[in-house]
């Protein structure tokens, strides 16, 4: 059964992998997205991920379910939010199936689709400033104080 979650802590990759490693599956594909030092020429100190958590969890689960139905496999996804240091995983997708083609395809589908339609935003904190990454754009975090008007 498809599994998806938005989590605040370090993602436990072996535990997530275990979910799709049943005795009927001969192939397990795992994708790990992690914080890298360089982003389009910017040196990254750390990242902060923000999610519209309830909607993101629903969308993630839907994507996992779509992949399970399309490729007849088992899928699990966790996306972490909050501050993440270099090399830490922000997202992990696992797919288990009888044969390898389905596991690869399902895993790839989930990470590709996740980027398009799961409401999560990344802020890159760099030595020279911080940037919201929004699709292809990097928007410098404005200096104006936050106002929560009503």
């Amino acid at each position: 059964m498809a599994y998806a979650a938005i989590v605040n802590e370090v993602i436990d990759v072996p535990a997530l992998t275990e979910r799709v490693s049943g005795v009927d599956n001969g192939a397990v594909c795992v994708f790990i997205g992690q914080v890298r030092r360089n982003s389009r020429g910017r040196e990254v100190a750390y990242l902060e991920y923000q999610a519209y958590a309830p909607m993101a969890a629903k969308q993630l689960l839907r994507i996992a379910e779509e992949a399970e139905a399309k490729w007849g496999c088992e899928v699990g996804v966790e996306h972490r939010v909050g501050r993440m240091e270099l090399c830490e995983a922000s997202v992990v997708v696992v797919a288990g199936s009888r044969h390898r083609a389905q596991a690869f395809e399902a895993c790839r589908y989930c990470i590709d689709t996740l980027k398009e339609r799961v409401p999560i935003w990344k802020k890159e904190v760099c030595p020279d400033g911080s940037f919201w990454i929004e699709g292809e754009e990097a928007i410098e975090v404005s200096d104006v104080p936050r106002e929560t008007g009503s």
Partner: protein
Amino acid sequence: MRVTVLCWGHLTDYFGSDGFEVELPEGATIQIAVTLLEQREPKAAGLTRRCRYALDEEYAPLETPLYDGCTVAILPPMSGG
């Protein structure tokens, strides 16, 4: 009617990330809520063109009518992964 508005990504720099309530006339759509935001913060004007929108945690087009107690979210281009 009272509607809760949630902003995300760089919009939280202008509007905060906790959401806020607005009073809208009956029959108001997501478009009307968005226009209200653009008026409130000129720097946000035009940026909302790039956004998608959600009504009660589901994607919805700009012309979707709102109702009392609902939640509208303004979603800039996403960068999960």
